């Protein structure tokens, strides 16, 4: 096998799996549920394999760069994909039994795109990978008319369209900006910017930021977030709310910190504004939400603001902390969405008020949701606290103390709505008292998330070390 093929072995495995799933469905009529578990199993094996396969080879022409940085992200995506797939199995079986293979395949394609992003050092590869990650999501967002009961509005098409329109508008801007940057520089290498920038460079760079910001759901490119989260199938949203964000973060870091690090004066303020606006808007808009998915959507906008804070720090420590943050966010948010999903399947709606009595019906689910909410709120002894703390510390050290204070203040608003959800879960009297029925996949995913959130909350060091290693591997090369 060629050395550079080995570099991409994980990515190829995932892409191949997508094809295999399609083929198995088309030719052998393998039941969807089996395909789902197969997908999950292979993803798990790939994840395990990532610890044994050496992917540190060199790729010709410098378009791709392997190393600890890339591996960190790939594992993260694989975990997110694995959890997302497991969370979807039962729902798919129930709702769209005849279209299961496509769902998995699309998710795997998106995953492939994601896995290529962090290593990309050339605009062409980055753009293609980024779009490969993004386009399947449009389709998946509109996968079903609705995932709730028939009484809920059928928002599937709308979810897809909103994601799509903002997405293509953003990518048009990205393309436009790239055209300016690449045209002016004359090279598609990420690191090819001159020391002295022309106005065209500057304009182009900022437009690219706008385009990338869409995937992260940062303000002002966040408008799709609540609507899509509300309309798309919740198990998918669980995946959508974390994995592409990690992908977006990877793209952001690759662009900002590898190629453009020297020009932090250009993008730094813009990023700071986006970060601040995201935290404020996300938290304020989340306050009046009554739909758990929209609420989590806006809360996600606010969380992304915190990650961008760390990127804006433009230091290795900041990057490491951003990695740590996004990793914990994957577990936390995915878990939260899956609990909401499980509860909604049993109680017939995604309203926060529908969570009433959850802790009585299924104490463990209630406790899990509480843990996830506390983690999102940044409360000690669950991992979200460390994530927020590390990010704030890094930003503070980089001189962004004003933004940190802003973040701390708006975090209080966050507490209000997180606690409101907890209130429904724990204090309100529910109408039903029968236990929540959740599929094995969902339960397994939630347990993994819970273990991660609590375990890392008690002992965050391994992940911090890992993130630091990845970040330093990345920063030392650039």
């Amino acid at each position, binding site marked *: 096998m060629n050395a550079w093929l080995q570099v991409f072995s994980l990515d190829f495995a995932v892409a191949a799996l997508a094809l295999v799933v399609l083929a198995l469905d088309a030719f052998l009529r393998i039941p969807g549920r089996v395909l789902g578990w197969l997908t999950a199993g292979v993803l798990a094996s790939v994840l395990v394999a990532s610890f044994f396969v050496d992917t540190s080879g060199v790729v010709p022409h410098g378009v791709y760069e392997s190393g600890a940085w890339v591996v960190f992200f790939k594992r993260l995506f694989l975990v997110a994909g694995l959890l997302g797939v497991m969370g979807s199995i039962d729902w798919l079986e129930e709702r769209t039994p005849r279209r299961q293979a496509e769902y998995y395949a699309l998710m795997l394609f998106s995953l492939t795109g994601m896995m290529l992003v962090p290593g990309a050092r050339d605009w062409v590869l980055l753009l293609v990978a980024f779009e490969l990650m993004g386009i399947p999501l449009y389709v998946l967002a509109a996968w079903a008319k609705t995932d709730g009961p028939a009484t809920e509005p059928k928002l599937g*098409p*709308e979810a897809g*369209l909103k994601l799509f329109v903002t997405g*293509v508008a953003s990518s048009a801007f990205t*393309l436009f900006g790239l*055209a*300016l940057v690449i045209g002016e520089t004359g090279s598609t290498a990420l690191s090819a910017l001159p020391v002295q920038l022309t106005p065209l460079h500057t304009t182009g760079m900022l437009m690219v930021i706008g385009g990338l910001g869409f995937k992260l759901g940062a303000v002002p490119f966040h408008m799709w977030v609540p609507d899509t989260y509300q309309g798309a199938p919740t198990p998918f949203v669980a995946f959508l709310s974390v994995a592409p964000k990690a992908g977006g973060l990877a793209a952001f870091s690759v662009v900002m910190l590898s190629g453009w690090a020297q020009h932090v004066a250009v993008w730094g303020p813009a990023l700071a504004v986006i970060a601040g606006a995201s935290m404020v808007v996300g938290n304020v808009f989340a306050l009046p939400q009554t739909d758990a998915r929209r609420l989590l959507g806006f809360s996600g906008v606010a969380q992304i603001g915190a990650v961008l804070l760390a990127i804006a720090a433009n230091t290795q420590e900041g990057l490491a902390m951003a990695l740590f943050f996004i990793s914990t966010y994957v577990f936390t948010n995915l878990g939260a969405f899956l609990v909401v999903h499980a509860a909604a399947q049993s109680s017939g709606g995604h309203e926060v008020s529908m969570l009433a009595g959850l802790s009585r019906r299924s104490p463990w689910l209630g406790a899990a949701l509480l843990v996830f909410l506390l983690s999102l709120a940044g409360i000690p002894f669950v991992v979200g606290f460390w994530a927020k703390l590390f990010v704030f510390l890094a930003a503070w050290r980089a001189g962004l103390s004003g933004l940190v204070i802003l973040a701390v203040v708006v975090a209080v608003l966050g507490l209000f709505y997180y606690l409101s959800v907890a209130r429904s879960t724990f204090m309100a009297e529910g109408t039903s008292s029968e236990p929540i029925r959740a599929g094995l996949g969902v339960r397994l995913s939630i347990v993994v998330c819970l273990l991660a959130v609590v375990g890392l909350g008690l002992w965050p060091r391994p992940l911090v070390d890992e993130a630091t290693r990845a970040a330093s591997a990345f920063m030392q090369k650039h």
Partner: protein
Amino acid sequence: MTLMNCILLASALMAIGVYGLATRKQAVAMLLSVELMANSANILFASFAHFRGGPTGQVFVLFALAITVAEVAVGLALVMLLYRRHGDTALDLASEARQ
């Protein structure tokens, strides 16, 4: 035709596309506007390639086109879904999600 003119042309196209996106009520018109926006970028790539030389821009255009096509294909499918849901392709119909 100077590079600056081309940039202005591309920008104008972009602006028209944005304007269309923001005002057109029909989903198909929206798709057209999106195409305009994407193609304004392609024009920019091409003009840079033309005035500055080198294959970079031209190659990129190809990729960009492919990506845009894929996007629009998905977009069309989504518009179909919208039509099935509402019997119309008016984009504003897709505004049920807000509370």
